[in-house]
């Protein structure tokens, strides 16, 4: 479970960082990006399904953060705010794609940590299938399962980010996990 709270010493430094970034200090803003880039790019990559689009989505999310810095009174609000914006940006990009009737086919190349080549292949295959299965999920279910399972947020945090109730999120996650499993079973179960 992700913990949005910061240690007292870090909080002081980070608050200064936020104030500097608000004043237009790009170095401070760069540090803010470094602190949140893994969550933003990781979420975007899972939601978009390819690195190029994920980079575009992350860039847009950070630009929106820069514009909205003055509306964020506390540095602890940045992380959930960024999750929300990243999910929205990715959903917007998906909708724009659907309007144009175009979806990229390439997926991310994932590095496997498995030492056994066969296991590594299965592992990589599962990752690829999960990635593909994610694309078949509806917007809300995909966002919920990525935030819950990939980012490790609690159901309450996911509900806060997506603007839904906890019950709804729990249901969405349950349905999404079931669909992911069915999708992976269809390929891995039969072929392996």
């Amino acid at each position, binding site marked *: 479970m992700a913990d949005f709270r910061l240690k007292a010493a870090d909080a002081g430094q980070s608050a200064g960082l936020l104030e500097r970034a608000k004043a237009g200090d790009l170095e401070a803003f760069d540090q803010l990006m470094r602190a949140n*880039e893994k969550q933003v790019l990781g979420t975007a990559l899972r939601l978009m399904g390819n690195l190029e689009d994920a980079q575009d989505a992350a860039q847009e999310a950070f630009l929106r953060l820069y514009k909205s810095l003055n509306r964020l009174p506390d540095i602890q609000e940045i992380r959930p705010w960024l999750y929300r914006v990243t999910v929205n940006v990715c959903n917007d990009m998906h909708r724009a794609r659907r309007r144009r009737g175009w979806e990229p086919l390439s997926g991310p190349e994932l590095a496997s940590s498995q030492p056994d080549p066969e296991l590594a292949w299965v*592992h990589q295959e599962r990752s690829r299938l999960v990635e593909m299965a994610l694309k078949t999920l509806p917007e809300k279910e995909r966002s919920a399962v990525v935030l819950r399972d990939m980012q490790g947020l609690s159901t309450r945090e996911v509900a806060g980010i997506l603007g839904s109730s906890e019950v709804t999120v729990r249901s969405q996650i349950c349905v999404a996990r079931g669909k992911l499993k069915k999708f992976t079973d269809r390929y891995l179960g039969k072929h392996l």
Partner: protein
Amino acid sequence: MNCSDLEQQIAVESQSVDLAEHLKICERCREFAQELEQNTAALRELSIPPAVFATVRQRVISEIQVKDLRTMWWTWSAVAAAACLAILCVSYVLPRLQKPVPPAPVVAKMIPPKIEWTPQSVAQRVRHKTSGRFAAQAAPVRKTEPLAVVKMLTDDPNVIIIWLVDQKGDSL
């Protein structure tokens, strides 16, 4: 409660005792739970090359700098335009608004001068004692009134055109 009912509980990571007991005895449900965990692990495993992060950061900073420059350019353009407008107002419009009405030329009253003539006859010529010649009377005595003065005021208060006019109205 059958396995398909419990799958839903497994999917939402239920912590119920019944489920835990069921998982101990049911291999199918254990496999189901295991596969869900594997999928979750696959979702979490994502290695993004560090260069990608750097690229995103660089792109964001560049974009911000370009936007800041654009904003600065528009600001200065607006300031320059406002300054030009102000200069135009000061140098062209305001003087026209405040232009003083030139005073009508003042013409002094022209009084024709009275000229008295004293005609002298030949008899009245005086013989000059010494030269024996007649000394003609000098030019007739002309008694004149002061000449009329015409003053013309101009736009410039320091410049006044003055001219003198005789009884005929000719300027001198």
